[in-house]
């Protein structure tokens, strides 16, 4: 019984900084609302109800949470290796694009189509990210900038494809691809909502993520993140590992894209990644780069997104407030070190003077 309580206490302690950060971020958000002349209580209530107020709303939140958590898992793998993959959006888009391309053009029975398009999405996203990994490994090009630039390039590429070569012949010129056949849509698992089978797939992927860190590949990636120098000394081929890490990370982003097109949109659109990329970074960090933390964190931020949209529609508060809260959460999370630093310094000073008190007693 004591052991269970110890575990719970440990989890609570590790969550506390994140909870405090979120509370602070909302606090500042509330201040901003007051400055703008709006009522924070009303705003946040709408936010909460919009996300969790009914089964339908909860289902909607879950729908948003799934791609977010898969994307965040991918990002966490890169981040753990100290590779700053900011290209989630672009990799998501490329994965979705490859999935839709294959899905529209390959006539396969369902049982095969899903795995094939899944693979296409993984490879499509993976290559887009692997490219940045290659540039970092071979040319020392800063991956933050390259992945970011690739985001913009992917966005424009997608824009061209859905207005040009992949445009929906029945869409009357609207920027979108044709619809994927009804039969290949992921089945809805909760009647009356948009919640689809992707949730199950997503959770399975998260579980796989947990076990990933117990593999030799996972340790290799972790070691490269700890120190490239030490990794090299241990015989690890660092450039190859970097490329592999980016490939896996981006591949997962691609799968998140697959999930979105096969479960929700059923076609490609300009806005297919709807800013998941940036948000996933926040989710990954808040979840401490740990699969379980990411699941919780993804749900929370999905709620924020869904609630934020409702807030905008119902109470006229711009969605940018949610962006502000996102930014603040990251800032407060990474600042939590200040508290522990200050606390440690105090402890050490007290400890040291205690020890020196003893010693000067001793030799004099």
């Amino acid at each position, binding site marked *: 019984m004591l052991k269970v309580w110890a575990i719970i206490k440990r989890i609570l302690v590790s969550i506390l900084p994140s909870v405090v950060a979120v509370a602070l971020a909302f606090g500042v958000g509330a201040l*901003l609302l007051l*400055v*703008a*002349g709006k009522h924070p209580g009303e705003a946040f209530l709408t936010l909460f109800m919009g996300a969790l107020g009914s089964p339908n709303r909860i289902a909607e939140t879950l729908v948003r949470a799934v791609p977010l958590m898969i994307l965040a898992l991918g990002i966490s793998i890169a981040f753990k290796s100290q590779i*700053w993959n*900011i290209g989630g959006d672009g990799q998501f888009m490329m994965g979705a694009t490859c999935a839709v391309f294959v899905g529209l053009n390959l006539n396969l029975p369902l049982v095969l189509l899903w795995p094939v398009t899944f693979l296409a999405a993984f490879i499509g996203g993976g290559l887009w990210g692997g490219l940045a990994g290659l*540039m970092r490994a071979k*040319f*020392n*090009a*800063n991956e*933050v*900038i*390259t992945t*970011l*630039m*690739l985001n*913009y*390039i992917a966005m*424009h*590429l997608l*824009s*061209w494809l859905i207005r*040009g070569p992949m445009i929906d012949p029945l869409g009357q010129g609207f920027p979108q691809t044709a619809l994927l056949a009804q039969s290949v849509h992921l089945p809805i698992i909760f009647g009356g909502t948009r919640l689809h089978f992707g949730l199950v797939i997503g959770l399975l992927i998260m579980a796989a993520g947990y076990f990933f860190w117990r593999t030799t590949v996972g340790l290799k990636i972790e070691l490269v993140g700890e120190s490239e120098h030490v990794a090299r000394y241990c015989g690890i081929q660092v450039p190859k590992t970097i490329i592999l890490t980016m490939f896996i990370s981006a591949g997962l982003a691609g799968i998140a894209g697959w999930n979105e097109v096969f479960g929700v949109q059923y076609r490609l659109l300009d806005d297919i990644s709807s800013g998941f990329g*940036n948000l996933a*970074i*926040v989710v990954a*960090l808040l979840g401490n780069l740990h699969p379980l933390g990411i699941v919780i964190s993804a749900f929370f931020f999905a709620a924020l997104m869904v609630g934020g949209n409702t807030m905008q529609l119902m109470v006229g508060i*711009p969605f*940018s*407030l*949610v*962006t*502000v*809260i*996102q*930014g*603040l959460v*990251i*800032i407060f999370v*990474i*600042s939590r*070190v*200040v508290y522990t*630093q200050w606390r440690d310094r105090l402890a050490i000073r007290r400890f040291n003077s205690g020890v020196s008190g003893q010693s000067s007693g001793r030799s004099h």
Partner: protein
Amino acid sequence: MQSDVLTVGFLVSLLAGAIRLSIPILLPALGEIFTQRSGILNLGLEGIMLMGALGGFAGTFFTHNLWIGLLCAVLVGMLFSLIMAFLSITVKANQVIAGTALTILGTGLSAFLFRAIFGIQKLPPQVESFQPLKFPILTDIPVLGPIFFNHNILVYLTFVLVIVTAVVLEKTTFGLKVRAVGENPKAADSKGIHVQLVRYICVAIGGAYAGLGGAFLSIGFMNTFLDRMVSGRGFIAVAVVIFARWNPYRALAAALLFGGADALQMRLQAIGVPIPHQFLLALPYVLTILVLVSVSKKAEFPAAYTLPYTRAER
């Protein structure tokens, strides 16, 4: 249509446009040179520029004075960048994450505040931005006149800042301190230099320049504030700094290159060259990647790049 491209008129317009469009990249790049030379990588430039753009616009709108607006932009940029300084220097957080957070915050906050201040209107609020200066004889010189002597004062100010930046870094005691702090903070500390303070100042300088860069967009180029107006220039500026190997003159050349790509893309679209316009839109970003790939291998980063400094007590 292709023939339109090869006229003198097109070239003149292109080069003038290149100069104009280089400014929103050059200004944040110059500031970032200070920041990076002191050892800090500030990826929050995008957010700072947006806040600066808003500050400049709002300041001008309410005081009907462009110069006060400019001052507002600089102050806003400096204050906002202090968040980055606090996170990287005092909290010693990971600079990449801190910078990204700042960009997200700046993007959201600028959009939110704009809505809060100006509300939703049919037509976006506007101001009269800085007008191009007319020089007595110089502006009328054929070809060279329209290219070099037909810009607003911010453009010329920026060129002056290029020289100021170079002189400060290479020829002043402050510049020496900055360079030492970025290369070997321990050595600087042992010579009595306050490493944290120097870095704070450099980040603030970077914020001031970035705020100025944002202001250029809102009150020197367009006449309003749009929440998408920076569109990645803050990040391109970081690439420029590395490409220029932290030298202000090379940064000028690089910024002109990027400005040129941007200007080219606009003009080719207007003419109707049969390339899908998305490819042209992507051009600056592709260029950034190519540039980064070609330089990064040989670039000698300041030795203390992104490494926070503590006077190590064992």
